[in-house]
């Protein structure tokens, strides 16, 4: 009587309480993504509405009224307009402002219907001329599909969200490009490490000098500062001597240069990677950017694409790994005249232009071709336009929410199935905080506050990963059922025999007593 509950209590495992109901609710999560977009009308679009935005029109009129003698100045009207309009309204993160201008305006060049600038604004040219009788609602209905298209380019579209969820929902790839995009960029991670390496296979001929610290500070750091809400970045750099490429380039006599064709590029990376150092302390994904200066006997070296044409950037990249650029220096010194080794100063601007483009691709800033009629301003020194940052934040937030949800539901399922795992209090608190952060992130997404939503989703992911990968959750307590019987039967069977016998004895005595009573009554 006393023994059974005591035995049960001492052999049970400690399992802290988990919010299983809420986790199950999360499994059927439906997230609503809301963005804010504002459309401003200029006067000639509609006389009544125009008064509301007269100030904006004022700026546009000013710009047009200035003396434009040459035609070339017309081409930058939209850039200037974009800058001036931006100073009026600093739009919050995640929102889009669209300015609608009349059909005949010269603000946009010929043939361009939409202009997207560096910030979160777009200028949309009105389609067919509208008559005076139409009211606000009809105007909006007419313009809604075009505004939706602009917003899809600048914020997110269905394909972007599907791509963000591509590891959860492995759909058959619609196109090779979408598969390539999803494979190329790194998954969302709390931090990344970027390593810049200079490979000098011929130190006897070239003494290379690269101002990497200055270049990183002026060109790469602005981009990383802008990306700070997404992840932490740590940068280091190294120089490798006597590091050869694994492939022998072929000499092309028509170009008088050595060439590497596209098929052999795949085998270049492996021998070099074995020699690259990396930060052993963190487990964050590493992006490698290599600058290779060919040795004097194999200069100049050009990369050819599949159509045997030289590549302008002379660089290639590998998905989820990084990029390699070949920098030719043979034209900086004459052959046989200058004493070796030659001091060479590397033009970091050109190099960083290529690395920055590769970094954008690796981080998932997709530069998919814009729809026809769109003019998108190329990002300049900042490396990233505000609306591109918004796009990245949308897809990262959705990815984080999806990953955290799947992690926490599979953890709950695992702990449910295996009754022997000990669940400590810290795991339970991590799980609860994940659930709370996820609910907050979803609420912020519905309200349209992208910045807060991203923050909550990051907290959710950190907590869920910590809970899932906690070292104490290792399931080593698998006992097959026959082994359980084999352990308990030799212990309990000898004990059970006298107990059973005495129970039978008690039962037979009770029966005898009842018989005696009945016979006494009779």
């Amino acid at each position, binding site marked *: 009587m006393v023994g059974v509950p005591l035995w049960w209590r001492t052999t049970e495992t400690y399992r802290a309480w988990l919010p299983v109901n809420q986790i199950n609710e999360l499994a059927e999560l439906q997230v609503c993504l809301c963005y804010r977009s*504002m459309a401003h009308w200029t006067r000639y679009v509609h006389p009544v509405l125009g008064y*509301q935005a*007269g*100030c904006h029109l*004022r700026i546009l009129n000013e710009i047009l009224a200035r003396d434009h003698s040459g035609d070339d100045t017309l081409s930058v009207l939209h850039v200037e307009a974009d800058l*001036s309009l931006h*100073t*009026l*309204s600093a739009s919050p993160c995640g929102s889009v402002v669209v300015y609608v201008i009349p059909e005949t305006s010269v603000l946009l060049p010929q043939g361009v219907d939409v202009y997207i600038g*560096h910030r979160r604004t777009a200028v949309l040219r009105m389609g067919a001329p509208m008559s005076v009788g139409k009211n606000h609602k009809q105007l909006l209905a007419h313009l809604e599909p075009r505004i939706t298209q602009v917003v899809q380019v600048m914020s997110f579209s269905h394909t972007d969200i599907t791509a963000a969820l591509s*590891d959860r929902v492995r759909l058959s790839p619609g196109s*090779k490009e979408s598969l*390539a995009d999803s*494979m*190329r960029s790194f*998954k969302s991670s709390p931090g990344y490490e970027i390593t810049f390496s200079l490979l000098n296979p011929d130190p006897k001929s070239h003494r290379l000098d690269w101002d990497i610290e200055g270049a990183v500070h002026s060109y790469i750091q602005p981009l990383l500062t802008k990306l700070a809400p997404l992840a932490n970045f740590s940068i280091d750099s190294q120089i490798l001597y006597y590091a050869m490429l694994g492939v022998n380039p072929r000499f092309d006599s028509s170009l008088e240069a050595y060439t590497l064709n*596209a*098929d052999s*590029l*795949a*085998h270049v*990376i492996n021998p070099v*990677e*074995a020699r690259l150092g990396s930060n*052993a*302390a963190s487990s964050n994904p590493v992006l490698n950017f290599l600058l290779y200066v060919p040795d004097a006997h194999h200069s100049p070296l050009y990369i050819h694409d*599949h159509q045997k044409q030289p*590549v*302008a*950037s002379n660089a*290639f*990249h*590998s*998905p*989820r*790994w990084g*990029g390699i*650029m070949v920098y030719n220096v043979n034209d900086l010194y004459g052959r046989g005249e200058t004493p070796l080794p030659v001091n060479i100063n590397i033009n970091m*601007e050109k190099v*960083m*232009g*290529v690395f*920055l*483009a*590769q970094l954008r691709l690796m981080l998932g800033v997709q*530069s998919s071709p814009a729809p026809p009629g769109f003019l998108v301003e*190329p*990002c*300049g*020194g900042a490396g990233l336009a505000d609306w591109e940052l918004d796009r990245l934040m949308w897809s990262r937030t959705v990815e984080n929410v999806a990953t955290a949800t799947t992690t926490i539901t*599979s953890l709950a399922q*695992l702990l449910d199935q295996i009754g022997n795992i000990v669940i400590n209090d810290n795991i339970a608190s991590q799980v609860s905080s994940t659930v709370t952060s996820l609910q907050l992130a979803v609420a912020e997404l519905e309200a349209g506050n992208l910045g807060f939503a991203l923050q909550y989703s990051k907290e959710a992911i950190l907590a869920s990963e910590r809970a899932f*990968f*906690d*070292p104490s959750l*290792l*399931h*080593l307590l*698998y006992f*097959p059922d026959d082994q359980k019987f084999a352990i308990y039967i030799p212990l309990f069977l000898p004990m059970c025999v006298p107990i059973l016998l005495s129970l039978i004895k008690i039962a037979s005595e009770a029966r005898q007593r009842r018989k005696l009573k009945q016979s006494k009554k009779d």
Partner: protein
Amino acid sequence: MLLCLTDGGIALFCVNPTSWQIIVFIYIYIYIYIYIYMGNVHSDKAGQFFNSGHTNNWAVLVCTSRFWFNYRHVANTLSVYRSVKRLGIPDSRIVLMLADDMACNHRNPKPATVFSHKNMELNVYGDDVEVDYRGYEVTVENFLRVLTGRLPASTPRSKRLLSDDRSNILIYLTGHGGNGFLKFQDSEEISNVELADAFEQMWQKRRYNELLFIIDTCQGASMYERFYSPNLMALASSQVGEDSLSHQPDLAIGVHLMDRYTFYLLEFLEDIHPSSTTNMNQLFKVCPKSQCVSTPGHRTDLFLRDPGRVLITDFFGSVRKVEITMETINLSSPMEPLPERINCTVHILYMCINKHIIPTAIIMYYVPRQKLLRDVFPCT
């Protein structure tokens, strides 16, 4: 009509053909044309690098036995390690677990070497072996921790399996095994249920894209019976009820040097180079019963792709996907100068607020009172 077969302008032979000979010649020409065409397509196939869906490769190679007479298990693991490194996977992506140190064992007559062939032809130890888990660190717990990622925070990067959802992983186990278990260090076992659960946890966290599991032990096929996660392919050296046998002893060293299955596997892999297009179906034919005495088995029902289209280098090598960088960013353009009229725009906004009924949208952008320029820029 005379039909001449020429080679660069020199007539090889000329015939006066009958109708059937014309047909034969046409057939031959068509055949040659198709052969050349297919050759071109074949070289294009190597360029279709997005077929397999993985971007990086990992390998987890485990030898679970200790003691000198289990020399062959260490040699097995080291020969697979050697092949995998030769085909391109770097040390940073290989987790090598050796339960005992044979190269520096007191009983080794040739210290610092581990041979795979009886005439001491191939030293698989080499001079740049990087062992991540050695000796008593090779336990069931550590193995499962590596697979599931549940390592303490102080574990260095080289001891972790940092794979992601686009990693192809090769897992190779060797040692003494039985029906449903594999013996670690002569003191503990891992069961096939635990292994299947570990793989399921890897799948839940998307820690692999595709996984190839090779096991060389007695009754090895029992270890992959319980797998239930997708994208797993498994090979074993023997079926349930059979023993995997060792290959040949070396009389100078005094022990059996390798197991049969891995010996023939090594021979097969020596012919593979990083750009070869050999597929998995040929791997399944390695070591038939006549050579191995046991019957190797494989399991592909959980694998989504057709094994005939899976290259050996998808798992054993590390062929990178590569794309040409088409665009660059022009950093030399000067930073955009701010327009000079920035003050005026502020005034205009204020003016408009004064004069009209204010819609809510504009109130949000209210700026403090500035000098009035009513005469210069009147509001309409």
